[in-house]
């Protein structure tokens, strides 16, 4: 019923690391919530179900907890219904997760021969005998990636995460998405192993695409939680890049490199859990104080909420993959495994992987831009609204939640070797050779890449040297006792005010303009001009809204199609409402004819003849003459 192997335990640890600080944060957040019992019930059910998913050993238990997880998280989104958008987001989320569930279910049915009580280990044989493994892979991907939020199944994330209460956003984005990643690990490594090369390439491309798309849409957001949610898409993409590389190496029998890439993916999974939870918690604290998710209404919060600002900064550095943070380390590992592609012998693949490198690097650059924007607009400058002006630091419990999460982030940074050793065990237990000794050949100081001319990084040395040099400089600065004076910001002779600052929209302006072809933004620009002069105006208002391309192309057309079909069916059903006898007559005719035709003897001529008769009789008896 349950399994506790290393992979499961690693993910149990991940969940616990994400949940424990969240418990504090959540209890600090509780007074803010009206329906406390409802919230608590679903909150704990949610946590329990996530734990249940990663330790379940057969499909029935897995699916049960999986669906329970969706159910409870859906209910949690609905904890604080303030407007229609929350309702819409919850609905959409639930549909998407159900969509994924359908494919997972199909997957399990096929690999379990319909027997849901089968252990995962027993599924391997059935899966290998199945004639279309590609189909299984497709089902698995659709099932887990719709939950993980990889492109193109990511559309629900930027709606659902902002709608949930902040502790829940942190859990959903930080932990729940990782449960889907667990599924990918578990079933690709346990059940569908070995893979053809194409699968790895597919995952790699999905990852590359997700990371770019995620960060691009994050940049264009000014809802802080939606921004973070879009970053989850990006990070899931990065994890998938690592995982895809692992698969590629594995299918080319480069086992050591493959293990390295898998460890990188797993490490990034942990890191993303830590810093994304922390970001959501800090953003939640800001939201808690300012009562708005709109970044344009923040500003200057660092003075009122120094701790929140500090934790956000730590997390922002980590998510931007700046050294020596843990985010940097895992991204470094993923980069290294991408660079190891020079070991490949397939020249076309070798030439294609630089594109993944490109997108990952681009993602890194854009992520920095995005977090400068998020941090700068939220915490720096002048407050842009009265709510921001009156913000205070949040209560003790919430603060302790954030501090604990910061500790998790820092621990991942400081104890990297320990974590990697542990992740290594996961793959050793799967029957692979240990690579820990190759990553840390000479103690915990230097971290090596496994490739032949791979790089090296020493996180602790970096950290210490950075701290020492900065401290020395600060010490020198203090020693000199430089005279300082406070004065207003110099604004070329004008006075600085909240309105003259750069806005979030403006900050992302250049990048948005550059990616205009992707965004196709919806711009609203109103200005009150004076005497028809284009350049002179009393007031101006500028707003940009961006509807993601995938949503436009994919989802809205699906909605349109469903509406169309349902309209047609509705009309048809109502049309023949009173001609029941005629309908029975026709269905009898149809069934008996088909029975005679298909089970006794088949001929095309008769088939066409039957079709004609059916059409005529439907026309005469059901539809009748036009009036």
């Amino acid at each position, binding site marked *: 019923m349950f399994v506790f192997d290393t992979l499961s335990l690693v993910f149990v640890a991940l969940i616990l690391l994400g949940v424990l600080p969240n418990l504090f944060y959540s209890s600090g957040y509780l007074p803010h919530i009206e329906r406390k019992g409802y919230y608590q019930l679903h909150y704990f059910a949610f946590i329990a179900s996530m734990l249940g998913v990663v330790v379940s050993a057969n499909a029935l238990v897995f699916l049960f907890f999986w669906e329970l997880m969706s159910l409870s998280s859906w209910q949690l989104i609905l904890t604080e219904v303030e407007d229609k958008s929350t309702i819409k987001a919850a609905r959409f989320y639930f549909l998407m997760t159900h969509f994924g569930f359908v494919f997972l279910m199909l997957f399990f049915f096929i690999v379990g021969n319909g027997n849901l009580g089968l252990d995962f280990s027993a599924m391997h044989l059935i899966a290998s005998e199945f004639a279309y493994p590609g189909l299984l892979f497709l089902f698995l991907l659709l099932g887990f990636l719709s939950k993980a939020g990889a492109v193109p199944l990511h559309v629900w994330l930027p709606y659902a995460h902002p709608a949930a209460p902040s502790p829940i956003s942190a859990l959903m984005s930080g932990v729940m998405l990782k449960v889907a990643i667990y599924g990918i690990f578990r079933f690709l490594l346990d059940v569908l192993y070995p893979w053809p090369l194409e699968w790895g390439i597919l995952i790699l491309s999905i990852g590359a695409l997700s990371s770019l798309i995620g960060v691009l849409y994050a940049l264009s957001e000014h809802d802080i939680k939606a921004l973070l949610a879009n970053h989850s898409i990006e990070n899931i993409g990065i994890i998938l890049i690592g995982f895809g590389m692992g698969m590629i190496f594995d299918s080319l029998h480069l086992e050591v490199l493959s293990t390295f890439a898998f460890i990188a993916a797993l490490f990034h999974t942990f890191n993303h859990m830590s810093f994304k939870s922390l970001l959501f918690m800090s953003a939640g604290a800001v939201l808690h104080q300012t009562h708005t998710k709109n970044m344009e209404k923040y500003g200057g919060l660092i003075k009122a909420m120094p701790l929140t600002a500090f934790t956000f900064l730590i997390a922002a550095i980590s998510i931007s993959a700046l050294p020596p943070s843990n985010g940097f380390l895992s991204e470094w590992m993923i980069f290294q495994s991408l660079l190891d592609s020079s070991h490949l012998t397939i020249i076309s693949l070798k030439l294609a992987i630089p594109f993944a490198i490109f997108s990952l690097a681009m993602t890194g650059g854009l992520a920095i831009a995005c977090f400068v924007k998020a941090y700068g607009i939220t915490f720096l400058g002048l407050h842009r609204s009265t709510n921001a002006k009156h913000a205070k630091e949040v209560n003790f419990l919430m603060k302790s939640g954030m501090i604990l999460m910061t500790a998790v982030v820092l621990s991942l940074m400081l104890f990297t070797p320990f974590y990697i050793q542990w992740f290594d065990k996961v793959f050793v237990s799967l029957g692979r050779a240990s690579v820990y000794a190759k990553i840390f050949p000479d103690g915990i100081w230097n971290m090596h890449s496994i490739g032949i001319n791979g790089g090296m990084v020493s996180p602790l040395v970096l950290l210490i040297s950075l701290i020492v040099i900065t401290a020395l400089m600060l010490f020198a600065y203090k020693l000199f006792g430089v005279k300082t004076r406070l004065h207003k910001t110099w604004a070329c002779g004008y006075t600085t005010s909240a309105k003259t600052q750069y806005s979030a929209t403006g900050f992302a302006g250049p990048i948005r303009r550059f990616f205009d072809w992707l965004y196709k933004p919806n711009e609203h620009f109103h200005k009150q001009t004076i005497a028809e002069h284009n350049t002179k105006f009393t007031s101006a208002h500028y707003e940009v809204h961006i509807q993601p391309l995938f949503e436009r192309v994919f989802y809205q057309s699906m909605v349109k199609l469903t509406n169309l079909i349902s309209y047609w069916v509705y009309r048809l059903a109502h049309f023949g409402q009173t*001609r029941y006898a005629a309908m029975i007559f026709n269905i009898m005719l149809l069934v008996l004819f088909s029975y005679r035709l298909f089970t006794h003897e088949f001929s095309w001529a008769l088939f066409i003849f039957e079709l004609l008769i059916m059409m005529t009789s439907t026309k*005469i008896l059901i539809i009748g003459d036009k009036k």
Partner: protein
Amino acid sequence: MVDFLIGLFLASLIVALFTTRLNGLLLWYAINSLMLGLLALSMGSSIDDDAMILSGVITILMKAIAIPFFLKNISQKFHFSQQIVPKIKVHYAIMLVPVILVFTFYLSEPIVNMIHTHANYMAISISSLFLALLLIMEHSGVVPKVIGFLALENSLFLLGTTATKGMPMLIELGIFFDLLMAIVVINLLFDKEEMRI
């Protein structure tokens, strides 16, 4: 003799399809039921089956006499219009009837190879089933629909008598009981107002 009665049965049903008067319809239904009853009687006497003779007698008493009278009473009581115009145009109906007959024979063709005697009877029963359905769907009034339903019941009996040489006695009686029940319910439904569907 059996074939002759079956022919008459089918003929009376087809004629009923084209009737435009309520009383005419009732008459043809009565004749239809009479043929059925006679068929059961003649088959029952030829194979010496008491149960079938009994059911033939009940059929004649109930379906050929009691029910038509009952319906006539009701129609007089509630002043139903005598004029019942089929919704399906006559030229379509003329086409449909032979098509149904051909189809049912086509349908029962494989059976002929399996059982030797009654395949044609079965085809006729199925086609009379379809014809009864046609009768139901071509009228919008309640009484013709009820008659259509009763004709459907007749075709069931035709199948029961011809294809299986009579069902178990208990079952036949049960079916009659249900028919009675149906009549009671119909009576209750008519209650006060005249309704059109």
